[in-house]
């Protein structure tokens, strides 16, 4: 039910998005065409780093690499490390895991204008193979009264999941872009120890059939998409200057032509 609700919200947003981003304005200017390979980018998730920095119970620290195709399609690969150490609120139990994870997928840019902003909807498929530990120092038999600390180490787990993403990304400066997205994650495969399920799955988050997550990516995007028409050039003042000079030359010839004609008339 939650999946259908999410997909319907996603579709609704997709339908109304042209109005949100000003696409309904009639623009007589010719449409800009992006090249097939419009850019290559690498990014780092600030959200995971911030969560680790403030000592959150769990954090997914990840980087990504992506390719831009015609400024519309963005095949993407994400790799990261999921880290969790969780103490029980009213128990002395401790769960911990630290393992890598991978995601592959694709984003689609809904924004038709090439103005540096990207409104992205996408899909990812995630994998993680991990070990997890669980300890309970005060574990005791309540009836027979015998206590024996419980220490379970290196329990093996394997998860796969699907993610539906929706996000927005803007160009901050030159090659630097900042974007965030919200992700609906649904588990497709889980193989864990029969002693107990993990509390946290690296890359997925809190272990459940489905969950929500999000990332805030600082991306360095190089290529033709990084300096579109009307924006500051990627590497260059030099290029801008050259453009300005050529513009100046054009305007000077335009201005001089009518004067010469006037002289001839005189």
């Amino acid at each position, binding site marked *: 039910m939650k999946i259908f609700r999410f997909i319907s919200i996603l579709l609704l947003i997709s339908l109304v998005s042209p109005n949100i981003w000003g696409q309904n304005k009639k623009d007589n200017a010719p449409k800009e065409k992006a090249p097939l390979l419009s850019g290559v980018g690498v990014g780092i998730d600030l*959200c995971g780093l911030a*969560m680790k920095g403030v000592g*959150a119970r769990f954090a997914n620290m990840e980087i990504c690499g992506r390719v831009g195709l015609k400024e519309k399609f963005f095949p993407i690969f994400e790799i990261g490390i999921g880290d969790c150490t*969780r*103490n*029980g*609120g*009213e*128990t002395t*139990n*401790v*769960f911990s895991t630290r393992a890598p994870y991978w995601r592959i997928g694709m984003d689609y840019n809904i924004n038709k204008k090439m103005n540096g*902003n990207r409104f992205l909807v996408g899909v990812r498929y995630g994998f993680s193979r991990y070990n997890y530990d*669980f300890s*309970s120092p005060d*574990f*005791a*038999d*309540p*009836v*027979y*009264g*015998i206590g*024996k600390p*419980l220490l*379970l180490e290196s329990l093996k787990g394997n998860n796969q999941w699907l993610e539906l993403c929706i996000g*927005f990304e*803007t160009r901050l400066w030159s090659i630097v872009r900042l974007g*965030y997205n*919200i992700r609906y994650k649904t588990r497709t495969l889980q193989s864990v120890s*029969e*002693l*107990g*399920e993990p*509390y946290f799955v690296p890359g997925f988050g*809190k272990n459940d059939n489905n969950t*929500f*997550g*999000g990332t*805030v990516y600082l991306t360095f995007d190089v290529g033709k998409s990084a300096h579109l028409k009307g924006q500051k050039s990627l590497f260059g003042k030099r290029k801008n200057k050259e453009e300005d000079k050529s513009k100046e030359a054009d305007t000077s010839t335009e201005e001089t032509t009518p004067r010469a004609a006037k002289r001839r008339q005189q």
Partner: protein
Amino acid sequence: MKQKKGFFLALLFTLAGICGCDTIDCTLNNTVVMRCNFYKDGKSVQLNGTLTITAADTTIVLLNRESSVSTLKLALSYFNAADTLLLNISGDDYKYTDTLWIEKTSYTHFESPDCPVNMFHNITEIKSTHIFIDSVTITQPDVNFAEHENLQIHLYSSAD
């Protein structure tokens, strides 16, 4: 400028929403007990006398002078390979004691650091003396959260 403000506000709300979600989902039915029913002539019966069950070699009383018993819910030990239970049945003019040996393997079960750790069991073998107990059969060897019958205790016809 307005667009940038909106972007950062949306970012802030998203992060707050993601970080703010946390729930504790422990199983409500989290008692692990072995369920036994009494049978006589193939039919479920209630005992007329009072029943007391103690663990052998200990002072632990698992059931204290319960009357009209038809079903038992007994906790098994976490760390012993076998449990020895003494079943004392008494009435106005009689008192019998039978012994039940339950061999099992136990393994821990956890859900979340916030939830208590439980011990599940697998009954491998069961033996008894035969004062008022005729025979004992294992119907479901797995003792866990599921509320199913694990043992059938068949009584002699005269032991009511």
